[in-house]
C-alpha cells in the first residue's frame, strides 16, 4: 500500500471516511493456434480503487456521499492530492441515505481465508502442463480437434482497508481463457466455443472440459436443423442453467428490493403456487473449490459465510452488501460470489422424454427483471419419448420464467464458474423456432 496515498488521505479536507481495495495481479498468458504458440504474454499490474465518503445533512436527513476513483501507479508530483480533492468534492454531491462501513471485528469468514492460499501456483510452470492437458484430451477424442486456445493464469493479492481500521487481505488464483474446437460433418466444418474459468491449475480438469467440448462439437457436425416445434418442453442443460437461476438471486437481492424491482418477499414462494416440479433450495456460498470467483471477504471487506436463501421454494431472507441491507433493516450477508442449488428428484434419463435438450447456445440471454430468457441454439438434441436423442442445431428457444407451468431439476449436478447445482432443468412451456 503506498504510504503517499494514506498520507494524502490524512491531509485531505472534508473526507469523512474512505475505503481502499488493492489488487496486485501477476498474470501469464499463452495463446495457441492448434498446437503452436501464437504469442506469450505477461502482465504485472496493480489496481488501486479508492472510495471517498462525505457525510452531511439535507432536509433533516443524514446522507453519505461517495465517489470511487482509480489511483494510477506512478502519480506525478501533486497528482495524488488533486485526485483526492476531486473525489472529495464529487462525494459531497453524490449523497445517499447514510450507511456504515464495515467495522473491524465484524466476524471471521467461513471458511477461513487460509483456504484460498492453497491455490496459488508457480505461474511460469503452470501453462505448459495445462496446454498438454488440452492436447491429451484431443488425442483421446476422435472426430474433433482443437482449433485454438487461450490460457491465462494469475495470482492475485487482494487487500481491503477502510477508515474504520479494517485491514484484511487474501491471496487467490484465477485461471481463465477460451477454447475453440472444430469438427467436420456432411455440411462442412463446424466449431464450438467455450469460455474457461478455473480455480485450480490442474491439467486433468481442463482435459475433461476439453473432451466434453470435443464430443459436443462432433455431435454438432452431424446435427440437422432444429425443426419448428412451437410450444415444446425444453431440457436446459449445461452452461445456460446457472444463468437461469440469476432470476431468483436478482429478485431476492436487497438492492433490487430497495429499487422496488424485486418480486419476492421473505417467507413467500419464489416459484408461485401453481408451478409443478421440484421446489428450489438455493444457498449463496463464499467458497466453492472449483470457482475462481470465491472470496472470503466482499469488496467492502465484509466477512462472507454461507447463506441459506431459498428453502423448499420459500425465500428465507434478502441478501446483499452492507449498504442495501442497512437500508432495509435486515442483517447483511455481504456480496456472495457463488450459488449452490440443491439437485432435483429425477435423473436426466427420466427427464429425457419428448423434449428439446439444449446444451449450447450462441449466447443464452436472461433478463433478470422480466424473467424473459432465450437464445440461438448451437447444439441441442431432439429427444423422443423412448429417450433416443438426435442432434439438432440452429433456430431459437425462448420463454418467460413467470409463465412456466413446470420446472424439474436433474438429480445430476455440474460445477460451473460460481455455480454448483443441477446439470439440467426441464422447463415447460417454451417456444422453439426452427433452424
Amino acid at each position, binding site marked *: 500500500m503506498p504510504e503517499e496515498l494514506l498520507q494524502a488521505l490524512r491531509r485531505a479536507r472534508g473526507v469523512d471516511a474512505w475505503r481502499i481495495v488493492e489488487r496486485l495481479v501477476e498474470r501469464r498468458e499463452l495463446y495457441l493456434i492448434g498446437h503452436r*504458440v501464437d504469442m506469450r504474454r505477461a502482465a504485472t499490474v496493480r489496481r488501486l480503487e479508492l472510495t471517498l465518503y462525505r457525510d452531511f445533512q439535507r432536509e433533516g436527513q443524514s446522507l453519505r456521499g*461517495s465517489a470511487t476513483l*482509480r489511483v494510477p501507479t506512478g502519480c*506525478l508530483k501533486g497528482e495524488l492530492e488533486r485526485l483526492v480533492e476531486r473525489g472529495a468534492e464529487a462525494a459531497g454531491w453524490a449523497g*445517499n441515505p447514510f450507511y456504515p462501513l464495515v467495522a473491524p471485528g465484524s466476524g471471521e469468514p467461513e471458511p477461513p481465508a487460509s483456504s484460498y492460499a492453497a491455490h496459488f501456483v508457480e505461474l511460469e510452470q503452470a501453462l505448459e502442463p495445462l496446454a498438454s492437458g488440452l492436447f491429451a484430451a484431443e488425442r483421446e477424442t476422435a472426430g474433433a480437434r482443437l482449433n485454438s486456445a487461450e490460457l491465462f493464469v494469475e495470482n492475485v493479492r487482494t487487500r481491503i482497508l477502510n477508515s474504520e481500521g479494517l485491514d484484511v487481505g487474501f491471496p487467490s488464483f484465477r485461471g481463465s481463457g477460451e477454447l475453440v474446437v472444430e469438427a467436420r460433418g456432411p455440411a462442412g466444418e463446424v466449431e464450438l466455443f467455450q469460455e474457461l474459468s478455473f480455480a485450480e491449475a490442474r491439467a486433468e480438469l481442463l482435459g475433461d472440459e476439453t473432451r466434453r467440448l470435443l464430443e459436443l462439437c462432433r455431435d454438432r457436425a452431424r446435427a440437422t436443423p432444429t425443426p*419448428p416445434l412451437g410450444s415444446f418442453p425444453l431440457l436446459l442443460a449445461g452452461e445456460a442453467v446457472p444463468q437461469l437461476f440469476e432470476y431468483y438471486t436478482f429478485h431476492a437481492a436487497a438492492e433490487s428490493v430497495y429499487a422496488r424491482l424485486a418480486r419476492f418477499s421473505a417467507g413467500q414462494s419464489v416459484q408461485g403456487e401453481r408451478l409443478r416440479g421440484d421446489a428450489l433450495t438455493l444457498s449463496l456460498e463464499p467458497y466453492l473449490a472449483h470457482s475462481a470467483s470465491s472470496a472470503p471477504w466482499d469488496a467492502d471487506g465484509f466477512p462472507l459465510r454461507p447463506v441459506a436463501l431459498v428453502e423448499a421454494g420459500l425465500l428465507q431472507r434478502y441478501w446483499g452488501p452492507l449498504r442495501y441491507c442497512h437500508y432495509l433493516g435486515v442483517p447483511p450477508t455481504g456480496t456472495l460470489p457463488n450459488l449452490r442449488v440443491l439437485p432435483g428428484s429425477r435423473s436426466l434419463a427420466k427427464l429425457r422424454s419428448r423434449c428439446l435438450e439444449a446444451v449450447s447456445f450462441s449466447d443464452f440471454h436472461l433478463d433478470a*427483471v422480466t424473467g424473459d430468457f432465450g437464445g440461438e441454439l448451437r447444439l441441442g438434441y431432439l429427444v423422443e419419448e423412448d429417450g433416443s436423442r438426435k442432434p439438432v442445431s440452429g433456430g431459437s428457444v425462448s420463454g418467460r420464467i413467470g409463465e412456466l407451468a413446470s420446472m424439474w431439476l436433474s438429480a445430476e449436478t455440474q460445477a460451473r464458474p460460481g455455480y454448483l447445482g443441477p446439470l439440467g432443468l426441464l422447463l415447460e412451456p417454451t417456444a422453439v423456432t426452427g433452424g
Partner: protein
Amino acid sequence: MKVPASPYLAAQRRGFRGVVRALGRQYGYVSLLATDSQGTRYEVRRGQVSVQESRWSERGSVVRVHDGSGYAELSFDLPPGRQLAERLARALRTRPAGGLEPMPCPVHREAPLRRRWRGRVKLLPESLRVEQKLARLAAVRDRAFSLCPSLVDIRVIYEEVTVRKLFLSRARELEQAYHWAQGYLIPVVRRGEDTRLMHQTYSGLKGVELLDELEEGLEPTLKTAEQLLGAGRVSPGVYEVILAPEVAGLLAHEAFGHGVEMDMFVKGRARAAQYLGRPVGSQRVTMHDGARAAEQVGSFWFDDEGSLGTDTRIIEAGLFRAGISDLLSALRLGTEPTGNGVRESFARKAYARMTNTFFAPGPDRLEDMIASIRQGYLLERFVSGMEDPRNWGLQGVILYGREIAGGRLGGRVVSPVIMTGYVPEVLGSISMAGGELRLSGSGMCGKGHKEYVKNSAGGPYLKCRLRLG
C-alpha cells in the same frame, strides 16, 4: 474545444523512449504503447446517486518485442525509471511454456512517422461542475416520475472518457488525445404483474453537450416503455422486417463484422476467408469498418499497435472485398494492417477488432419500405448479439418490434424478439436501404465473451427477411 494532451505521458515520454532504445539493442522489433485515459460515470436513479471511475480509465504500458521467431508482450503499470528496461528485459527472457513449438511471425518493418493528434468537442468535461452534471441527471429522473405513472425506477447515466495514448517504436512516435461520452435512459415500468425494461442510449465523440440529447430523449423513451407493457409475443416464423439503424448496426457487427476480423483468418475460423471477391449479399449491401470511416466512439487516429486508422470497404454492392486486420495477422497473411489492432486495455492483448462498422445508406424511404410489407415487423432496439464467424449463424436479442400489417405500421408491439438466420441468406435478402446513416456506440463489444472494447455500429433503415422467435 481541443482535448488537452496527457501531462503524465508528456512527463514520461523521454523515459519510455529510453526503454524502447534499451530493448532495441536486444530485439529485432520493439514497440511500447503507453496509455493515460481517464473517465467518470455519473448515475442517478430512484433514491440513489453515484459517481464512479469509468471502467475505461487506465494508466499503464505494454511493450512488445520480436524474440527471433514471434512476438512476446509484457504489460506493466510502473512509470519508466532507471531499472525499468532491465526489469522488462529480464521478464521477457522468461518463456513460460517454452517447450511448445512457436508459430513464426515476420519482423515488422514500419515506415517512419512522428505525429500528434488532438480531438475536439463542443464542451470539455471541466465545462460543467460535478454538481451541475448530477443536478441535470436528477432533473431528468424527477421529470420521468412526474410524466410516467407506471414508472418503477429509471437509471439516468452519463459517462465521459478522455482517451490518451502514446505509441513508440524505432520508427514511430505517435500520440493522440480524444474524448467521447455516452448516456443511457433505462426506465422500468410495471402494470400489475407485467414488468418491462426499456433502454435508450446516446454516444459520440462529444463532451458535456451529450446531456442535451439525454434530456430531449426522455419523453419518447417513456412512451415506448409504456407501450411495452402488455406487449405480445411474436409468432415464430420467417418475416419481412425493417431494421432500424441501431439493429442494422447489430446485423453489420455480428453477422459479418466479426467474421472478417482477420485474426480469425489466421486461425481458420472465418468462413468469409473463402468468399473474398465473391457475393455475400444483395447489390444493396455496402458495408464499411474503420476508425476513420466515421466520427463515433470507435474512431481514433492510430490503433494500439501503431497502425494508422483507415476506412475499409468490406462489402461493395454485395461483393466481399476486404477484411479488417490487426498488425500480427497482417504480417502472417502478407496483407496490409488496416488499423484495427485494439486492446481492452494496456493489460490485454491486441486483436483484430471492429471500430465503426456500418451499412452504407441507399436510395429508399422508410415509408416505402413499410408500404411494401404485408405482414412483418419494424425492429427498433436490441439487447445483445453474438457472432458465429465459422458457421455464419446469426443471433440478436431485440428489445421490441412494431407490427406492420397491410403496408401500415400498426400499434401492436412484440417483446422481446430473438432474431436468427444464416448470414448470406439474410444479407442476400436486403432489398431496400434508407437514405440516412446513423451510428451508435453506447455498448461494448467482446471477442467471444471477453476483451471488451468500445466501438460503434449502424446503418440506414434496411428491409430484409429474418427468422423471429
